[in-house]
């Protein structure tokens, strides 16, 4: 075992998961009102049930405080394993320690916890997730390439203050730093298609000569594409378009030529997570930090990947 792997007998005195054929897995979801999170929740549920585990899900409905309570409720119920898709890094780290104290091993999916409070491999078994910054960076690099390093672009921001949006923004900025690409407008579309459309309808009028659009998720981009088309522009050709997520409709849009590319953010954590839980239960080593190798879809691979998109 390397110093970075966790095992029931390893360092950090992680709680032990008794080996059983089926586990009761408690999952504290952060919300289920968005295609991406729904895909994530479904993936976990389907995979767990396919393998015969009992799956208990709570839904924080977008509230960190509720998610903390939800985890506490799962602790109170005495589930075997707790899986958290944390809404926020710090509060959920605190409650993870509570689970640890109660002797329940925890797995974290999607977003990281605050490492100054809870450390993977010591306080919880493993983090399996995606890297929002990397997604933003990938989108930025692609945009920079397409625009040859200069141009005016519009950014359709995710929910202001949410980590997915902030990280993608950060990654994107990193990627276009040093180029002549200028973000002329960044408006909050709350990751909703209708808002993406309305914002684009408005912005395209104020900035008719815009060169590119970067949306923090596919939904907003799909709305924006309608708006650009309605304004008589050709998104994907006249205007470079790139977004994040890789949902089926977006991949189809790449094939149709209206969307340039989308940085995948795969919500299908189920198989990887279940493998990890089962491995941990059987006493094997588990890699405490597993980041998804997210794909990047553009015209070259879209037709092939369409079937795999969520």
């Amino acid at each position, binding site marked *: 075992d390397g110093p970075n792997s966790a095992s029931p007998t390893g360092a950090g005195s992680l709680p032990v998961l008794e080996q059983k054929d089926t586990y009761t897995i408690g999952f504290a979801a952060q919300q289920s*009102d*968005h295609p991406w999170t*729904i895909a994530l929740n479904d993936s976990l549920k389907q995979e767990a049930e396919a393998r015969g585990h009992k799956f208990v899900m709570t839904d924080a409905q977008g509230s960190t405080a509720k998610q903390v309570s939800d985890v506490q409720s799962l602790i109170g119920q005495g589930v075997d394993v707790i899986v958290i898709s944390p809404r926020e890094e710090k509060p959920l780290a605190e409650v993870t320690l509570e689970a640890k104290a109660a002797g329940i091993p925890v797995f974290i999916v999607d977003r990281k916890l605050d490492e100054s409070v809870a450390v993977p491999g010591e306080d919880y078994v493993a983090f399996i997730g995606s890297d929002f910054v990397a997604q933003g960076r990938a989108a930025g690099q692609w945009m920079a390439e397409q625009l040859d390093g200069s141009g005016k672009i519009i950014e359709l921001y995710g929910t202001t203050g949410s980590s997915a949006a902030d990280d993608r923004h950060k990654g994107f900025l990193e990627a276009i730093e040093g180029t002549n690409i200028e973000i002329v407008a*960044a408006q*909050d579309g709350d990751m909703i298609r209708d808002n993406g*459309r309305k914002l684009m309808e*408005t*912005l395209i*009028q*104020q900035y008719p000569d815009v060169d590119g659009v970067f949306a923090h998720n596919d939904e907003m981009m799909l709305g924006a594409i309608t708006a650009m088309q309605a304004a008589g522009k050709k998104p994907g050709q006249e205007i470079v378009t790139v977004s994040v997520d890789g949902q089926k409709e977006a991949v189809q849009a790449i094939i149709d030529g209206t969307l340039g590319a989308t940085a995948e953010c795969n919500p299908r954590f189920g198989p990887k997570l279940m493998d990890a839980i089962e491995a941990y239960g059987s006493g094997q080593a588990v890699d405490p930090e597993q980041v998804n190798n997210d794909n990047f879809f553009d015209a070259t691979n879209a037709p092939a990947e369409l079937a795999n998109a969520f």
Partner: protein
Amino acid sequence: MTQSTVTAPNAQGVSRQRSIRRLEFISRNGIWIALAALIAFNVVASNGFLSWQTLQTNLGQMSTVAICAVGMTFIIAKGGIDLSVGSQMAVAGAVSGAIITSWSGLTSVPVVGLIVVLTAAMLSAAVLGTANGFLVANLRVQPIVATLVVMITGRGLAQLMTSGRLYEITNSQVLNLGRGTILGLPTMAWVMVIVVVLATWMNRKTVFGRQVFAVGGNRIAAGLAGVPVRRVTYTVYMASAALAGLAAVLSVGVNGTVDTANLGLGYEFTVISAVVVGGTSLTGGKPRVLGTIGGVALLQLLSYTLASHNIATEISSLVQAGVILLAVASQLRRKS
């Protein structure tokens, strides 16, 4: 003091009168003045504001809100309130989405298909409206509570129906309804105009409009004077819900998707703000349909202006809050 002398009102009184009259003018035309000011600002400060496209964009964007707001005007005038508009839209969206996908043969027939979809959407929303009416009129639950319950339950039902997933809508008629134009203006805007004209007419000329006002003005007295209070209550809630259903189809059309989690989300507050800004009293009374449209237009143009000038959300929400307050304040007729 047996005989009094007749004195002319003194100067102080006269100037008071004049200032009262000026205040009244502003209060009666507050939104229109604000709207004009906002347009003037945009003409100066926004790129290509005086264009056909601006009109198209704004009319299109305000139409779904306006259609819901017309229904809400009558509800509020009746002395009620409806927090469940957004959920009604979600349910209507879910139902129409289901019908479009499962009966694609029927729904792609020109005209007939559209009628089927619209009817289904409006009826399914009206079911929730009926629930509101029943709770308020028969069970005497207070409107805020009744519609709050329907709001929570309704969205839950809509999401249950779609299991939370998105429906992609490819039905060309529905898409056309949302995205098409007639005589250069969005079809949605025409739908809005028809709804507004009808509602204004009903409000001014029909017995129904009178009855809504009476119930909103004094429910007890209206009932004793023979106004069918219960029927009026049902009618306003059902009609408003049906309009929400119509708005839902428009929204589905323009976005090409049914997203039950977000369809109509938060509409209730936008719509209520518009109605109140438009001068209909929250305690009930006279429905002011045109005022409502003014209110919707003001809020729409405001968010258009803020977005096109790339104002950050946090600042935008401060500005919007301020404008709503100012607009309502200017509407208020002084009581003494």
